[in-house]
């Protein structure tokens, strides 16, 4: 039996079941059929009100319709979250899941079937709602959006619904009760609320091309969440988990084991780990770095792209001639540097702790962004380097000499440390989507965080310290030797 048709058997049942539940049907029907009229009515009132205060306010009235157009589409899809959240865990509570798990369908078919089942009804409601609003806006205000905006809003609602559903299905398959799933739903609701606010701003701003970026972002998030759901969904986990209780002692024991054992024995719980620094430096760190060649490569390529992007921006926004005069750099240029708010003090500790904070933050942010923010955090300074190197090139200086003097002396130590730390942070984010083989999400996270910490404590921190020493004491000397006024 083809995979999708089996998944659709589940979907059809889910949709039929939702249609028989008045607690789902009634609110969706109200939001779908009544809310657009209310929005239309509100739009007319608001338009009349703002236009009463002169033509300058016409732009507000003009932008109100696209905003409300998006909002009427968003409200019905919020129900997809309610349906999706209870899709697995609700069935588990009602004891109807095990018979389903005993059938010959695959985990992926079951996951997709459930996901589409949660998606179908609210999304259909959303699109009907959009049509009703459009009809109302056309007949009452003679307003119709640009066809491209219509496509954007339809895609936006689909992307948002898919993000909510795929995220909620993941939550539902990883919790033990509907109550726990509802509590965890805030991890989905809060980002979605922020996203809708951002979309509203964009629509009032009138920069509709930005919506394409939002749609693209949602598409990527959809793909990541669906892959994550398919990857971490398994019937074993659903049936095994009875309690959401946190066992701190067990977590600490697992973490200590992952940290202390050599990488190839990390999963062997019966093997006793030993904190052997010599072994860790000689064996663990090289093994871990070799095993992380792919994230390291990804980070390197991304950083190269950041340098390139910085250089491109330099061409678009050239500095006026005479802004940078390196040949007249005074000998005391690095002494008594003025304190700029966001920049660290130019001391060893200032530079060291600033870099330490940034890379530690990368590890934390990676956890909440599938690793993306960790990479973005490192891209920013590299883009600045690319920007200035290109500016200097345009002003007649050699970009290579600039990089060789300002960056390379300490960068040769700092950059590898940053790349390695970011690659391990990226792995933390990726572990949510794709846990290491043989481990569930929780244990997988513990393992990758333990690896991150091992690398961070034993390699990155010493390198950052050396880099800070060089940056403060040697780099300025190199710069002055090359560019100094004498």
């Amino acid at each position, binding site marked *: 039996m083809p995979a999708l048709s089996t998944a659709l058997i589940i979907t059809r049942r889910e949709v039929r079941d939702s249609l028989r539940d008045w607690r789902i049907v009634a609110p969706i029907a109200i939001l779908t059929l009544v809310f657009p009229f209310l929005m239309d009515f509100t739009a007319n009132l608001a338009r009349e009100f703002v236009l009463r205060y002169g033509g300058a306010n016409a732009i507000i009235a003009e932008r109100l319709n696209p905003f409300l157009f998006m909002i009427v589409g968003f409200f019905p899809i919020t129900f997809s979250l309610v349906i999706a959240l209870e899709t697995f865990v609700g069935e588990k509570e*009602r*004891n109807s899941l*095990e*018979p389903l798990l*005993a*059938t010959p369908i695959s985990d992926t078919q079951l996951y997709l079937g459930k996901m589409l089942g949660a998606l179908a009804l609210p999304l259909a409601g959303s699109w009907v709602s959009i049509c009703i609003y459009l009809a109302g806006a056309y007949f009452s205000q003679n307003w119709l959006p640009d066809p491209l905006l219509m496509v954007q809003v339809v895609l936006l609602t689909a992307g948002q619904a898919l993000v909510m559903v795929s995220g909620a299905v993941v939550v539902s398959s990883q919790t033990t009760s509907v109550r726990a799933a509802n509590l965890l739903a805030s991890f989905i609701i809060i980002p979605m609320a922020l996203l809708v606010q951002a979309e509203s701003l964009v629509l009032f701003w009138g920069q509709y091309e930005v919506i394409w970026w939002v749609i693209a972002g949602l598409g990527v998030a959809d793909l990541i969440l669906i892959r994550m759901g398919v990857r971490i969904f398994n019937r074993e986990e659903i049936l*095994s988990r009875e309690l959401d209780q946190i066992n701190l002692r067990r977590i600490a024991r697992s973490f200590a084991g992952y940290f202390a054992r050599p990488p190839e024995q990390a999963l062997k719980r019966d093997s006793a780990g030993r904190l052997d620094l010599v072994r860790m430096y000689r064996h663990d760190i090289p093994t871990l770095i070799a095993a992380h060649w792919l994230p390291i490569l990804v980070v390197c390529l991304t950083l190269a792209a950041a340098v390139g992007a910085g250089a491109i921006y330099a061409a678009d926004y050239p500095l006026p001639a005479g802004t940078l005069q390196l040949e007249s750099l005074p000998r005391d240029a690095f002494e008594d540097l003025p304190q700029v708010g966001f920049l660290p003090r130019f001391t060893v500790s200032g530079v060291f702790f600033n870099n330490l904070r940034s890379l530690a933050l990368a590890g934390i942010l990676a956890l909440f962004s599938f690793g993306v923010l960790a990479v973005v955090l490192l891209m920013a300074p590299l883009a600045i380097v690319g920007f200035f190197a290109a500016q200097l090139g345009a002003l007649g200086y050699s970009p290579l000499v600039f990089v060789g003097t300002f960056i390379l002396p300490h960068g040769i130590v700092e950059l590898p440390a940053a790349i390695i730390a970011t690659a391990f942070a990226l792995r933390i984010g990726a572990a949510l989507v794709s846990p290491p083989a043989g481990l569930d999400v929780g244990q997988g996270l513990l393992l990758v965080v333990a690896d991150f910490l091992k690398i961070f404590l034993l390699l990155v921190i010493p390198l950052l310290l050396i880099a800070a020493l060089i940056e403060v004491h040697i780099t300025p000397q190199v710069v002055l030797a090359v560019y100094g006024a004498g």
Partner: protein
Amino acid sequence: MRHSRPFTGFSTGVIEAIGLTKHYNDFVAVDGVDLTVREGEVLSLLGPNGAGKTTTVRMLASILKPTAGRASVAGLDTVRHAREVRRLIGLLTEFPGLYLRMRGWEYLDFFGQLQGLAPALRAERSEQLLRRFELWEARQQRTGEYSKGMRQKLALVRAMLHDPQVLFLDEPTSAMDPHSARLVREAIADLRRDRRTVVLCTHNLLEAEALADRIAIIRRGRIVALGTAAELKQRLLGDPVIELRLGRTLDGLLPEVESIVPVREQGPDWLRYSTSQPEVVNPRVVERLARLGAPIITLSEVPRSLEEVYLRIVSEPDARP
């Protein structure tokens, strides 16, 4: 419909488990279960709540993966060929777990589709089983309106719908009235006649004794006793006790009986002895007494319940079969 076996490498049992083990973190739910269930055999799994019966069944049904050991159903490894195994088995779970907004007929159609049955076959099998379990009249009712017993019967129909080669039945007659329970017991007996293999988890010891060819008692994740009811009774309670009742007093007859078998207890007109070979000893006793003209009213085995065996096993400190 009977499924063809993709691989017939198994030799002795339709279900085979070797060292089957399941850990949930530090908790050992199933601890090295070795088991063979032959074609057409009904095996009853007995044990206290939390003994590991459900986990064992879930591993055999390819729903859970064992932490260690392996199992096969019809020669198919339950981990590597999980989907094929799930196609060959029917599972009646501890709770019926129906979709309460679906109608009975619709519910069966849904599971029939998931099992890949053609529409005509789904309809035929559904009708046949619904009629058999006296649910035909209720087929268009929502399952939420069913009584507990009806729900349990519908769940059993769901498990049997695709005519599986192996059935795992967890408490099949719980919540049923005596008439329905009888229907289910008859169905299980018919399954055995049709050479289906049945694993029956139950707390109803009478039912286990009546239906099962062999009984496995599981405790703390281990099978601590395995055999036929008679074998278990003999092993745990000793040789069967035979009671002889006469139409007169025992005067002068006791030495005659004791020359064949030692007498354990006696009354004015009755005696009891135990023997491991009743088929040899009993005819000799009867023959001797008949020759002496003693009127025999009854010669019967003193009933010993499986419950006695069960309670003795589960209260022992630890044991292996």
